């Protein structure tokens, strides 16, 4: 495609196509979108983040990432759709326009690029990073068990061959450490949303302990609003609640760390499931998934904008 209007959002794309898309979007919208490289993956690929900003300096911000588990292709595909949606709706949709006139949005579409590349070239089922584990033939770390929040507690594996291996130490993965450094240096991120698939859930901290977080009541009612908005489009039903209550104990997960950094609105999504394909969701499901998820994202972003802290 020559531009982001002719980009095929209804299909899955390779990593190089995602990188090209990001560059095209920046070139087409120089006053709204810029690209920040927050680090490099283990195999040396850039960790690109799109910044949507109408100006100002270190404005309060919203972070969204997709694809930290590389095989969950509908998340990267939805990320592409969200990026285009933001530039299309800015100036037309009053709620999004108000948000962007006061806040910045950061969007990392290919959060685990080595893994994503590997799913296209070698193993469609790959979920982890691609760093070798010294003394073991199994590669990679689960980047959603590698954060310094209950790191190494039950709910992650010590076995490098497991899909939930937590890694040798917290933030050992450059894909994780780069986000950690960015969040800390920015210092003004108010909402952090990490997007996975495929079991239709919207979750908030914590994953490693049953002790409710301080803001549980607000996070719970906001999650309810978000999934109600999501369901209004196609009737897709979500479960919601804290990670440990709704799924299972999971230690070292992304949004537990972000919440403990003071980012109150920390959420993680599990996008839709057709019940037949799991994370091998057919491409025709991409746009409906992105559309309905967008409604929930707007609910979370709008609440953040209207409830500064």
């Amino acid at each position, binding site marked *: *495609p020559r531009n982001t209007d002719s980009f*095929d959002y209804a299909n899955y794309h390779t990593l190089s196509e995602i990188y090209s898309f990001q560059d095209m979007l920046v070139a087409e919208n120089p006053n709204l979108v810029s690209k920040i490289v927050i680090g490099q993956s283990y195999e040396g690929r850039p960790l690109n983040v799109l910044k949507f900003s109408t100006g100002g300096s270190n404005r309060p911000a919203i972070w969204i990432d997709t694809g930290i588990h590389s095989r969950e292709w509908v998340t990267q595909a939805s990320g592409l759709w969200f990026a285009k949606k933001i530039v299309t709706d800015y100036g037309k949709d009053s709620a999004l326009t108000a948000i962007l006139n006061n806040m910045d949005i950061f969007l990392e579409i290919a959060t685990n690029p080595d893994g994503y590349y590997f799913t296209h070239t070698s193993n469609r*089922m790959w979920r982890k990073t691609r760093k070798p584990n010294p003394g073991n033939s199994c590669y990679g770390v689960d980047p959603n068990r590698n954060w310094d929040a209950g790191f190494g507690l039950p709910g992650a*594996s010590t076995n490098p061959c497991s899909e939930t291996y937590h890694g040798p130490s917290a933030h050992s993965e450059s894909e994780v450490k780069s986000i950690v450094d960015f969040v800390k240096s920015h210092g003004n991120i108010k909402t952090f949303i990490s997007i996975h698939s*495929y079991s239709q859930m919207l979750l908030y901290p914590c994953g490693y302990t049953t002790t409710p977080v301080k803001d549980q009541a607000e996070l719970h009612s906001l999650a309810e609003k978000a999934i109600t908005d999501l369901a209004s489009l196609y009737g897709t039903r979500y479960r919601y609640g804290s990670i440990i209550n709704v799924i299972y104990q999971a230690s070292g997960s992304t949004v537990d760390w972000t919440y403990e950094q003071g980012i109150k609105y920390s959420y993680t999504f599990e996008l839709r499931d057709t*019940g*037949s*394909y*799991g994370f091998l969701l057919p491409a025709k499901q991409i746009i409906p998934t992105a559309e309905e998820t967008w409604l929930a994202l707007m609910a979370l972003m709008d609440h953040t904008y209207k409830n500064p802290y």
Partner: protein
Amino acid sequence: KETFEGHQVLRIVPKNELQLALLKNLEEIVEFELDVWMGVTGVSYPVDVRVPPHTLETFKSYLDSHDLEYSTMIEDVQAILDMEREQMKSAARLVQ
């Protein structure tokens, strides 16, 4: 390139706490070579696992012996992967 001919994805639904506990340990039973797509969350909530063809019969026997109900969510993973790749290729051709 790793391929997945004959791999199936089974959807297992635990009926009680005992079955839930059995499923929680599935990934640790290395001889089945399972890939847990969707893990255990609670009674009546499905668990999806990819099973390679050479352990399929043994694994199904294990499920039967513990009265664990399952259905085949994906008959042949590679068939879906081939379809996915073909869709991407044809979409790329259309764009060109």
